[in-house]
């Protein structure tokens, strides 16, 4: 049985990754699962400088989902490299670093800083965070701006470059094509869908930031549709995510067109989720007599 998948130039031992922001810097989960079993660890989004993020409250549970407005709190690239990366290097897994910036220059600098590091196997560029700050959100919703910022970053890194798309757009395939034309090696989707919740007693928004990003099983049908559309629109590999809670969900994303998948909110519900999903995929392959997992990708499009 062959579990390997290729995400552009990046070869992963299996298709199961962790979704950025739901797995900390990896170490938080090391006591529960063997990180070496994962296809890749994708860490919390980093910026050049540390960020405090949004004021609390930052979380609201919703029907089969949750809203978060973390606001990209992170320790900054330097501390990550010093304090977190050495730990991750001790595991036999690929390390993908999610990053963002407030300007094209910041994106370029961040990419360059990360690309000079040994032990980082790929970059995931977040152009899609719905926690609007300093107007940078537009990177992920206007194809021209997407093209510009991805092109700029492409020139600064030789690492496999994954661009993470926002679902908060009219036509995700337009965004996908813009990113690919600008040099993305792969695309990951979806990031959270912007939502909100109001407390009817206080009559105020529940989140400190008013709006937040919806994740979890509630959004799975939307995520799956977008992966299906993007698979049709571009030739590069797609990493699918959005509400994956089980191996069945993961397989659905692969059938829709994903080459790899990422487990997000499920990590909160069950710290073993990523590994249980991997085991479930293996089980599905055995039962269905599937030799290579990569043969599943996009088969729902046939016929």
């Amino acid at each position, binding site marked *: 049985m062959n579990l390997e998948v290729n995400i552009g130039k990046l070869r992963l031992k299996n298709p199961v990754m962790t979704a950025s922001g739901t797995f*900390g810097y990896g170490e938080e989960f090391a006591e529960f699962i063997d990180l070496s079993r994962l296809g890749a660890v994708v860490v919390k989004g980093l910026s050049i400088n540390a960020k405090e993020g949004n004021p609390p409250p930052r979380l609201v*549970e919703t029907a089969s989902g949750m809203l978060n407005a973390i606001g990209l*709190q992170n320790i900054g690239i330097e501390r990550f490299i010093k304090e977190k990366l050495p730990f991750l290097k001790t595991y036999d897994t690929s390390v993908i670093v999610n990053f963002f910036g407030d300007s094209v220059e910041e994106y370029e600098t961040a990419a360059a800083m990360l690309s000079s590091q040994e032990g980082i196997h790929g970059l995931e560029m977040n152009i899609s965070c719905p926690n609007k700050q300093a107007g940078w959100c537009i990177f992920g919703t206007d194809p021209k701006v997407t093209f510009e910022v991805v092109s700029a970053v492409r020139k600064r890194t030789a690492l496999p470059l994954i661009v993470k798309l926002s679902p908060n757009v009219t036509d995700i395939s337009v965004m996908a094509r813009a990113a690919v034309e600008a040099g993305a090696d792969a695309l990951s989707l979806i990031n959270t869908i912007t939502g909100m919740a109001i407390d009817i007693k206080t009559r105020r928004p529940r989140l400190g930031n008013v709006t937040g990003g919806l994740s979890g099983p509630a959004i799975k049908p939307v995520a799956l549709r977008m992966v299906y559309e993007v698979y049709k629109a571009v030739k590069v590999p797609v990493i699918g995510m959005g509400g994956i809670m089980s191996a069945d969900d993961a397989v659905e994303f692969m059938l829709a067109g994903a080459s790899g998948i990422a487990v997000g909110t499920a990590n909160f519900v069950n710290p073993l989720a990523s590994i249980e999903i991997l085991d479930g995929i293996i089980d599905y392959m055995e039962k269905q007599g599937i030799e290579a997992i990569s043969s599943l990708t996009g088969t729902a499009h046939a016929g």
Partner: protein
Amino acid sequence: MNRYFRAEIRSNRPVHINHNLLSLANIDPMVEPQPGQFYMLEVSKGLDPLLKRAFSLFRRTQEGFQILYRIKGKGTSILKDLKKGTVLHVLGPLGNFYPLPSDSESPLVIAGGIGIASVFSLVEKLSKKAFVFYGARAEQELFMTDALESFHRELVLCTDDGSCGVKGTVVDVLTDFIKKRDEFHQPVIYACGPKAMLREIAKTALANGVKAYVSLEEHMACGIGACLGCVVKTTSGHQRVCKEGPVFDAREIVW
């Protein structure tokens, strides 16, 4: 030995209107909890409610541990209907714990309402004579007072309506108490309860140069420091209630 384990419900009985005591027996080996720590409990196998719920360690038992909980919303309403024999996934013990007093310190434990759940096992553990102030709106909302009394600490009960013990809030009592504090060399406060109460306690403590530890609550997704969802504002930036907390030095919180 694992902080993610299965536990079986041994009993789940009402102790008052809208409050239940849940006794769990661990099926897998569990890590020894400390007073002030908490657990994330699975309340349903389905996708709604999705997240686990946070509950303080109420009491360590021979077969596992107990949770004292208030039936508040969706999750706890499901929890209250779970029967003996139900197996739940549990994450914990999580977070930090109440730092025990030094020999020269006199512990002063303050609980408001369901806050008793968090400090109960601390009271049980405190080796020296501790003062315990426990307040609620009315007599019926003071839980487990028999058990508290059995520890033979100095127990002061307060109720808003005076139906039991002192009429007034624990904050009133605390303020009085601190005023006549020469009988006390070095009080150290341990408090859990509504945020407004904790804020007042912090104020009083600070004003009187008394050390105070408060246990805070925030909505949580992961419970293990990964999501950054449960932060509170502190003098040294955002801190995670599930990791750096739930117990904080009252001086460090930006109230």
